[in-house]
């Protein structure tokens, strides 16, 4: 082995040590320039090849190139190492507390009354009913007369009415819409299936359980072969959508001027499952709606032949539904719009 080769070998060893000892990229670069640069020792060795024989030159030359390549690789390795360390160091300084709260966009709440209305609408839309809204200021004719409540009918006492004039009033229930739709409907196009949710008014003093304004939904299904068993099935389907699959319903005889037979509809208590609790006043049942088979006089008043067509109607209090569902104890909450109340129902469903 020539002395040049020995010198190169020493250079390689010493160089590798120096490179590995570099503490930052600048130092590494300085070492690289010093070792591998034009004025560096390897270049110098190659320059010394002039003194070698022609036969010796290729071997030494190739050895020198190998040494240079090897050192360059060590430099590259070290560079990658140092760069990685530098990034890691930088990232360490960038670390944040990910448990600090995020900037949440402010999302408003849908009023709980609207949520209940939409849930009911969607349930009945799914069964092929349409949704109508009607008038809040109604004619007495539609609010009473056409619903089998002629003047001086005792049932009118059941509803304390805000009159505007002798013949115009604030609707006391959502039934006027049913009469209007019944009057308009073309039965050659199929049965009439509708629900009508909206605001109604009664002459009541506002307190925890009474409100001069509240929301109701009524619905009707009038066709050629609509039975009371269909009423039971339809309501059972709707109740289960809203209060859960395991709910049972029962009919109790009742009285409404616009239906006969008339029933109150109870559902098995969703809180105690029928065992008895405060919500159901220890009966296991909760009264949620009124219903019945549309009275022949109502059909006749709307120009529909009760011998051919018939069906059912039902009505429920939206406020009461919401109060039952969420255990709300004061009806005034719905209309005072305290944001601490409204936002409790932000999560829909």
């Amino acid at each position, binding site marked *: 082995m020539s002395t040049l080769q020995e010198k190169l070998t020493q250079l390689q060893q010493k160089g590798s040590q120096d490179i590995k000892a570099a503490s930052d990229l600048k130092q590494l670069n300085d070492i690289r320039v010093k070792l591998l640069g034009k004025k560096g020792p390897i270049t110098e060795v190659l320059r010394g090849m002039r003194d070698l024989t022609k036969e010796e030159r290729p071997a030494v030359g190739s050895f020198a190139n190998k040494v240079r390549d090897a050192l360059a690789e060590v430099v590259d390795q070290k560079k990658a190492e140092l760069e990685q360390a530098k990034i890691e160091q930088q990232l360490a300084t960038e670390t944040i507390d990910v448990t600090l709260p995020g900037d949440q966009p402010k999302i408003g709440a849908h009023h709980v009354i609207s949520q209940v209305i939409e849930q009911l609408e969607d349930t009945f839309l799914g069964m092929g009913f349409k949704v109508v809204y009607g008038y809040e200021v109604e004619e007495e004719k539609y609010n009473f007369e056409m619903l089998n409540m002629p003047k001086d009918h005792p049932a009118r006492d059941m509803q304390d009415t805000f009159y505007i004039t002798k013949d115009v009033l604030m609707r006391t229930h959502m039934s006027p819409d049913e009469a209007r739709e019944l009057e308009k409907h073309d039965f050659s196009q199929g049965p009439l299936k509708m629900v009508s949710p909206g605001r109604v008014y009664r002459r009541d003093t506002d307190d925890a359980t009474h409100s001069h304004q509240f929301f109701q939904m009524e619905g009707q299904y009038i066709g050629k072969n609509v*039975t009371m068993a269909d009423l039971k099935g339809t309501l059972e389907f709707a109740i289960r959508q809203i209060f859960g699959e395991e709910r049972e319903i029962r009919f109790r005889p009742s009285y409404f001027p616009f239906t006969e037979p008339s029933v109150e509809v109870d559902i098995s208590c969703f809180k105690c499952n029928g065992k008895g609790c405060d919500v159901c006043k220890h009966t296991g049942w909760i009264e949620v709606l009124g219903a019945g088979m549309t009275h022949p006089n109502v059909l006749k008043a709307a120009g529909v032949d009760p011998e051919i067509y018939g069906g059912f109607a039902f009505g429920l209090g939206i406020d009461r539904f919401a109060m039952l569902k969420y255990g709300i104890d004061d009806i005034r909450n719905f209309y005072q719009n305290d944001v601490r109340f409204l936002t409790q129902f932000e999560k829909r469903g």
Partner: protein
Amino acid sequence: MKVSYNWLKDYIDLDVTPEELANKITLTGIEVEDTFHPDAGLKKIVVGYVVSTKPHPNSDHLQLCQVDLGASDPVQIVCGAPNVAAGQKVIVALPGSRIANNEKIKKGKMRGEVSNGMICALQEIGFSTDVAPQAYADGIYVLPADAKVGAPVYPYLGMDDAILDLAITPNRADAQSMRGVAYEVGAVYAKKPHFDVAKPVETAKPVTDVLQASVAAEKDAPSYNLRVIENVKIQPSPLWLQIRLWNAGIRPINNVVDVTNYVMLDYGQPMHAFDYDKIGSKEILVRRATEGEALTTLDGNEHELSADDIVISNGTKAINLAGVMGGLDSEITDQTTTVVLEAAIFDPMHIRKSAQRYNLRSEASSRFEKGINKGTVLTALDHAASLIADFSDGDVLAGILSPTKIVPAATVVEVSQERINHVLGMQISAAEITKIFKRLAFGVSEMNGQFKASVPTHRWDISIPADLIEEVARLYGYDKMPTTLPASASTPGILTPQQRRVRQMAQLLEASGLNQAISYALTTSEKASQFTLIPAATTSVAWPMTVDHAVLRMNLVSGLLDNLAYNIARKQVNVALYEQGRVFLKQDAKTTRPEEVEYVAGAVTGDWQAKTWNQAAKPVDFYQIKGIVAALLNQFNLKATVTYHATATRAEMHPGRTADIYVGDQLVGFVGQIHPQVEKVYRIKPTYVFQLNLTALLTLEKQAVVYQAISKYPVITRDVALLVASDVTNQAITDAIFAKGGAHLKNVTLFDSYTGSKIEKGKKSLAYTLTYQNPGATLTDDEVNTAFAKVEKTLVEQIGAVIR
């Protein structure tokens, strides 16, 4: 209607508990609201015999009573009642007993004397003051002499009974009588009720000797019947009858008045008793009152009658408001010796009106209003006369005066088995239907499934086939009704496009941070008329409950401001609300029905963005609200252009911070800050609001959605900074830019706005980015430069801008 379980058992054999009975009645026909046991909660209350009394040495009103309680020697009980006396059987609450209101009685000393319990008044063991007999109102109650000393007191007072409180619907007035309830219970349990009837023993003297009766208009009193009873002695009724009255909530008075009440409870037939000697004539005439005719009713109130009132007169003056309340002058008193007893049917509508007019709703008027069993008017009269004669030693004169009367007849109603099952969706057999009608005590005949039901007079609510169908359904049992879904053709169940758009709008407003509010539509006259979009006349209710809810709103903003005030008063100062609902607009005061228009409005106060660790607080300003309105309007995809016009003319709005909103040339709403003086009145902080006519937005013409390919050619932008006079609007500048912008100007965006110390007073600096694009080719700089130069020129010449 309070139904005594014990009384009911006289008419029908029952082997169920009162609670079971109540539940069964509720499920088959009439809701029982409550089942009440009068002795519930009472303990150790027994019959005592007062052996002797002597005054308490340390008191001027207490007595020391030696009371025999049946067990050992008499015990001493201190009693303060003025009527306590030796020889009485009394109610004694023993030491350790419980009396009304869960009060516990202990052995104790009163002013140094031992008292082994308490001698009780009826009120102290749970009787209502309205029901306890007047004679014992201020003292202890005295039990009948045959009461067994030491035995529980409850059976002697009817307190071992159970009272079922029935909620009677207008169609079931037949159950406003014990006999009616017995028929109903009989139908429910398939048992036949049994009733006693009583015919009075008449004297030879005919009634016509002492009295004549006539009815002016048969329609007012289609059945009017009188009996006369002479030589009566007014005294307390027998205890059994008193018990029946007080358990029904009626105070016993005397043997005549009590019988009228008892027969009313029994038959549902109101009765009236007149003192014959005080009628002032030998004549009874049923007629209409003359307008303004005077009558003092039993309660001592004087009335000026209306010509719509039916009255009983003595031929010259009114002595009784028919069916509603008797007159004070002819009232039964302790001195009465001859009684005129009336059983009638009056026209329900007139009774109802009279009761309402004088606010005199009574047990009697309520029954006349809802209906009377035509079949028992005379039976009830006879029964009452017989009882009065019995209890008062009176003589019933021969015959009944009946100037009008109704011949009772059953109503025949027909219905087919097929119809019943068609309506109910059930398969009830003809035999089953027959059985149900029989349980109801209806006569029934059937031929090939066609039923003829002969409905007795006690069920006057039944007149059409639907009535019979209901009877079958409830007595067959709704629990046996299957659940099915209608078999008819399917129908599409979809929201209308407008209904869908309103739901989308709600989502947009909520995603924008506004909470949905629902306010009262009835408000004060002042608030109803504020913030109106267009002038309109108010709609008021005729008899409001309060002035706060008297007039229908014509805007949604005032309700939202009330809501903000409510929140602010409760320390919720950052509030963002919106409401969607109707306003009620009348064209003029003469119109009776307002137009109902859907509006949507929003109101925001306080910080739009609350301060957090990461963000500074951002108080609400005009542009945030305007941004929400713009997003909302954008969602409606309107064909005409939306423009904002400064307005200083809205009285409740800030004159410098309010814009009217137009779609094309139609005014659809406004946005801006509430006038600071109005904010003060509402007690709210600076508040920004918007209000839009939603009905208009829903009906205005929409823009067609047309797809455009995304251009592959690049856009070129140019920025321009302008110095303009302060009153030059953004609208004027962008209008000018677009006017001269050329075919390829796509967009103009304001990116900076400055007023302040760095520029001349009275000026402001605005900077815009103009974006150019040719969808068909690459634009050259030269093309853009030429177009941009035209814009700069017009800004200088038209707007007076200095380009910076």
